[in-house]
């Protein structure tokens, strides 16, 4: 048989094959053929962040983010006596295997979010002028920075501990790196630098007004304030330049952002409302369309078959709460059978909480934090009276008396105390101590572990790099 008839036959049939196409999909070039396509691609990233991350349908990325950033602190007490993904972090077991650790899903979901952000960023041409496309790029940059920041503070050591040399996380900034691409971990400093660079670029590109479920110029500034605060060194050995930046960005948000601290009843009902339209929220991960499960970790369902509500406000946190503090409203009576001493549960995630799921937003950046960031930065800049003024703003709003004459360590402790009270269960727990060179102290027993003091230099404060990832990428050094 000759090659000629073969090729003739193929020519005609190639045409028929070419007429077939995949359905219900959008070719990449079509996705980015219009400004709307860029917006849709970015909306998809928010959806991933709010829960739909592609790795494991049973695990919600946002829930993991909330839990992991709270787990190693002393705001919560565990009633859980078993070994599972939650206790793996809470009890500093750090197995790093996917059966018993959230690390695998969290790490991978994070990089999946980054892939999607990178795709959007890569498709924006140099010199692009279309407002919608630039807005999409800004949001993608923000979401990438947001994801890297969360990764580096969970997997990397506190910034003050030799950030230039200590390993952070992989910096993946391009798409389609080929099957052999296996980068090592960039240093903590490099990751922070990337986060800052992304946020600063993003801030200059935002040009549309959206709800606070979306990134905006001020959410970029707010996150920059937090990032610089994390870089600002310990109270005894502060880094002026970063603290100044932290204070400056906070000031920008406070003065120019148009946000307001909610007062009195509005404040007490803060967590019973959704974030859009709320004047205090700067950026929240909205979960209205997600089946968020974080509330069953923090409170026992009214009925149902699942165990839940095992992570309660700690005796330490409760001891800080003054009886007059309006923030008592954020804790409700919620009994888990067999635990008569731990009947309080946090209600910050019980919006729309039915039997299994909640639709509460993760209020990632809000105005109160800006005051507290600025207070701490100013304290480290030796501007104690201005720092005290900011703390008093928060105290006053919480229904507490204003303090005067506080200075030095007492002032610093008050700032940290207000952070703990104000931002409990919002993902700051252990970071506030460790980045300041302070130990995390649990003066109470939990389900599986007793009282403990964990130093910021202790490696077990770090989330383990997933075993499976290390097997795939031998360049990843373990924690």
């Amino acid at each position, binding site marked *: 048989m000759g090659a000629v008839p073969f090729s003739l036959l193929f020519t005609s049939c190639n045409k028929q094959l070419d007429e*077939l196409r995949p359905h219900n999909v959008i070719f990449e070039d079509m996705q980015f053929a219009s400004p709307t396509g860029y917006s849709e691609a970015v909306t998809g990233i928010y959806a991933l962040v709010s829960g739909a991350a592609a790795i494991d349908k049973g695990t919600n990325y946002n829930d993991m983010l909330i839990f992991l950033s709270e787990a190693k602190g002393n705001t919560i007490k565990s009633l859980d*006596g078993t070994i599972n993904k939650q206790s793996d972090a809470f009890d500093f077991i750090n197995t790093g295997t996917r059966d018993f650790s959230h690390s695998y899903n969290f790490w991978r979901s994070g990089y999946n979010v980054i892939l999607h952000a990178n795709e959007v960023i890569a498709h924006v041409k140099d010199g692009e002028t279309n407002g919608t496309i630039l807005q999409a790029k800004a949001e993608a940059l923000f979401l990438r920075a947001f994801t890297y920041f969360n990764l580096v503070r969970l997997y990397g050591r506190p910034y003050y501990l030799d950030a230039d040399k200590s390993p952070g996380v992989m910096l993946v900034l391009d798409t389609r790196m080929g099957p052999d691409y296996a980068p090592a971990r960039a240093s903590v400093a490099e990751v922070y630098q990337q986060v800052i660079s992304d946020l600063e670029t993003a801030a200059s590109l935002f040009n549309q007004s959206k709800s606070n479920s979306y990134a905006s110029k001020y959410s970029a500034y707010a996150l920059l304030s937090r990032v610089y605060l994390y870089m600002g060194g310990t109270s005894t050995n502060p880094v002026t330049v970063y603290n100044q930046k932290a204070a400056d960005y906070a000031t920008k948000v406070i003065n120019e952002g148009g946000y307001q601290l909610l007062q009195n009843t509005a404040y007490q009902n803060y967590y019973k409302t959704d974030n859009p339209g709320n004047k205090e929220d700067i950026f929240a991960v909205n979960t209205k369309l997600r089946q968020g499960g974080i509330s069953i970790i923090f409170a026992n369902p009214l009925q149902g078959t699942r165990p839940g509500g095992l992570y309660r406000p700690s005796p330490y946190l409760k001891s800080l709460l003054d009886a007059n503090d309006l923030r008592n409203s954020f804790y409700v009576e919620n009994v888990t059978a067999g635990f008569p001493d731990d009947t309080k549960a946090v209600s910050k995630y019980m919006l729309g909480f039915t039997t299994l799921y909640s639709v509460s937003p993760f209020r990632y950046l809000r105005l109160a934090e800006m005051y507290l960031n600025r207070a701490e930065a100013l304290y480290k800049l030796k501007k104690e009276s201005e720092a005290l003024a900011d703390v008093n703003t928060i105290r006053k709003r919480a229904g507490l008396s204003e303090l005067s004459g506080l200075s030095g360590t007492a002032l610093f402790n008050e700032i940290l105390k207000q952070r703990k009270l104000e931002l409990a269960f919002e993902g700051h727990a252990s970071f506030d101590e460790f980045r300041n060179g302070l130990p995390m102290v649990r003066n109470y027993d939990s389900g599986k572990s007793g009282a403990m003091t964990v130093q910021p230099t202790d490696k077990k404060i770090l989330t383990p790099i997933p075993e499976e990832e290390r097997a795939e990428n031998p360049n990843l050094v373990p924690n």
Partner: protein
Amino acid sequence: MYKINKKDLHWRLRLTKESIMKISLTALICSVGCMHISASTMAQNVSMKHTKISLKDAFKEINKQTGYHYLWSAQKVKSNTTVTVDIKNQPLEKAIQSVIGGLQLGYELDGNLIIIKERHAPAVREIQAPIIVKNELAGQQTIVVRGRVVDSLNNGLAGVTVSVLQANGKMLKQASTGANGEVLVENVAADSYLEFSLMGYQQKRIKAVENIGTIRLKVQTTDLEELVVVGYTKKSASEVTGSVQAISGNELRSSVSSPNVLSMLKGRTTGLYITEGSGEAGAKGEVVERGQSSLATPTNSYFGPLIVVDGVITNYKSLQDAVNPSDIENVSILKDASSTAIYGSRAAQGVIVVTTKRGAAGQSSADVTVQYGITQPRRNIRFMNSTELIGFMDKQMQRYWEQTPSVQTAYPNVADFIAQGRTYSDEDRDHNFNWEDAIYSTGNFRNTDVSIHHGTEKTKFYAGVNWYKENGILYKNSFDRKSIRVNIDHKISSKLQASINLSSMVDLLSRRNGVPELYMVQPFMDPYDATGKLRDSLQVNASFNYGPAYPQWTQNFLSEAKYDNNSLTKVQSHLGMVRLRYQILPYLSLQSSNSINYIGNNFNSYLDVRSFSGKYGGYPYLFYPGMTLPNGTLDINDIKYVDYLTSNTLNFNKQFGKHNISALLGQEWGKRTTETMTVNMYDILPGERNMGAGKYFGDVFTAAFGEPYSPRGNYQERATFSVFGQADYNYTRRYLASASVRTDATTNFGRDKRYGTFYAFSAGWMMSSEDFMKDVKAVNNLKLRAAYGTSGRDLGDGYLNTTFYANTYDGSTGIRYEQPNNVGTRISQLANPNISWETLHNTNLGLDASFFQRIDLTFDWYHKRSDGLLQNVVLSSAQGAMNQYRNVGQIVNKGVEIMLNTHNIKSQDFNWHTSFNISFNKNEITKLYQDSLIESSGQAYYRKIGEDINVIKAIRFAGINSENGNIQHYNLDANGNQIIVDGLGETSKLANYQVVGSLTPKFFGGFNNTFQYKNLTLNASWWFQYGNYVAMSLIKDFQSPTMPRDGYNNVAFGDNQHVWTGPGDTKANYPDVFSIDPNAWSSLTTRSSKLWGDASHARLRNVRLTYSLSQQLLQKMKLAKADIYVSGDNLWVIRKKDFVGADPEGARVGTTQYSGVSTGFANPRRFLIGVQLTF
């Protein structure tokens, strides 16, 4: 199909290569599609004039002039005998008569084939003097019988033995027919019978009458050499150079009873590893041929062979969907490249060729088969009763109290702790409901087949209808099949033939919704209340962390019997094929096969609003008072597959002296479209289960949480275009060679990489035909075979080198954010620009031998190498943490297969046949493009080069710590030394995982014995497999310390499980089940080698006793054949002593489901009685 008897020495045929090719062509037909050829017939008349022409050359000449081929079956007269012929424009039959008239030869025409054969008797022969048995005829009326015996073409048959028999079968005398088949027998008792017999023809018996008219004898078609379908051609078995096994439909049907041919194939052939993990009615089973040579992907987890039905390449993934067992003529298993390469990109996993029944010329008969049977559950485990379960929970709480000082402080007295924390009540002690009997009970099935065969020279047809109905063992589980098949062959002219196949199968599988698994119900949960009425829901108490019990509810499926709370799966499969063959020249024909295959899968699951389940949509706990309830739910899922396939081939075959050459050139276009649709509805009109009956779209979660919902659907189209060629050569059928090549273009890999070319070479040597073997009397047949070739893997997914975004997400809320109408997009497929074909390189060496007329042996050795193994790889985070199809490595499967058939006892009244087969396979990863492949179930360990693709690794069990009841395992310490630790030790240290074994057996096979005594036949079939492991997950899941407290039941410990009882118990082989110590029962996970069970077993799959009615009775009843039989399936299982599970059936290969049967049920026991009648 024409078959030649190979067993009878008198009829040892000397088939010319040419004639064989012609036979293969009789089934082939000519194309209409793209070529237009005017239909003109060849001359039917013959002219020739020769003196001293050899018989062979004379028939060659006839062949040239008429297109009729010839088959030589005479022994005594050599084909080089010379004759003198002088004919002019004579019709064919006259011409043949002129050639063979002077010799002791006869002939028969079959299609365009002339079969030349010996005459059994002298050409002219006087009727022999009757042998009169005096006494018996005395006083009786006698008659003179006259008539004529002919073949299907009315040629008189000479030498037919005419036996005069009494009604009891006793022979009175014998005579023979004359030259033209005339019969004349005198002195025949009026009430006697006449039996006509001639070698090669079916016997016929009639009542003796004076004028018997014309008696037509049919060609004997059983026990003859099979023609085997190989690719686009048929070959006689002796010509096959590859590894092909054919099993007749009759053999398949004489074993286990099932609507699934796959089940019947188990143990009958080598190389097919078949698992039947579910005994539910309508379950389909799984098959892997010669080891797993590909990896499962989300869209293509089918590892079984390509299924070809009557020459049509199908997309069926189960033999159950492809064909009804009663319609099967035979099934061929193609295993090596020479047989499969011609199927190109789809044949890497082997090919199963199903040939359905067809009519034969001169045949007119009807068959009726009726079967009725019962099925019984057969499970080697049992769940705890109330006393056991309550005792277990008490003891567990006691141990918890002992282990937890804080509890001892709170409850100084353990009894108080148990009283406070227990989940059962005192009343529960008096309730013990046998859920096993409620959920599994005796089932039954009935099967009715009716079929008709009919054929004239021009038109032949087969028609069959079947109805199978099974009421399964599982509560209200049923399977109903109705099928019809019509196969027609019609000769339009001597040059143009048509074959038409039509088949329809309609299956209805019903499964009750809400029937719990046994572990989900506790024995003291009583479905009846105090007054004996069925409760609408069942309450069970669960406790959390030993706090006070809280109630949960589940529906009581028993109370919902009056509502149709079931899920129905309707499968409709229709296959129609028209094949035309046009004989252009005697040695050249054109054939076109065109088929349409429709497979519709409709799934309809319903919960009635009037039932408790329906009210809450099956999830009562989701709804608190005041919430809007689902009030009945309906889920409809519809998948439609439409396949169109056209294959057009040009076939050539010709003999040049001793060289026989045949070749084939073909082109094929196949397209498949798949359309899916899923709609969920709630608030349903009672008793209605159609799309118009729902008030709201959505599922139970939509109802409970008010989430956005939209119905889902998809449409896929894919196509393959192929060109192929094949050439076969043989030299006097002693040396055989074959080669083929095929190029496929598919939509799988995108435009640039869509082509895959596959080829094969093979050769055979018929050693027994060599002169030096002639004197070796012990060897009847000896053939050596060798084949090498390639085939490809059809992935199922398309356009893999392209990145796609999608705005849908496989979840109810989709990819929306903040506002329901704010829909985003996400990457649904990440491009892999380098992806290419997975290619299988297949080498096969084989030997066929038979000895002493009693022993048949087939031996095969194979080596299969899969290059460019395709896997849906979990990408590392650096690459986006998605899944992507990649070529990841190479696997080799190698093995040995032996099939041994022996006729152990051969006598008139008693015969004993044995068939034994065994298949060894070794799987090995030989290359990996990355360092290792992660095991996909627990992702606990990695598979490396040199290991089995299904290797199981776990931390090695070391024993039980006799002091504290903990389980112990071997670990490696920092220096690599082996140490024993309590619990699992370091689970994240990969070096601690050691090879346990593989999911697939080292060998498996079948052992069948048939004993025949007069009219009785006893058949027994065994299956055995050795060396495969399954996860005995019931130990971890349903023998757990805490599951009973969560409201579940536990499996009672078996005699082979000695659970640690207390300090000093050195005999324990299981740890302390009551301890909450993480190093005790909690360490019994799949990471522990203790949890992996050796599932080697042997199973007596079937015993059948058949009684065949005697000829006399048949004659009385006007029947050709009548069998009655009783049969039992799955009668005995021999398994490993320490195996824990309901059944040792192996786990499904290639998936992440490693548990095998566990607590479910597989392989019920069946007993049936059947009757088979042929009219």
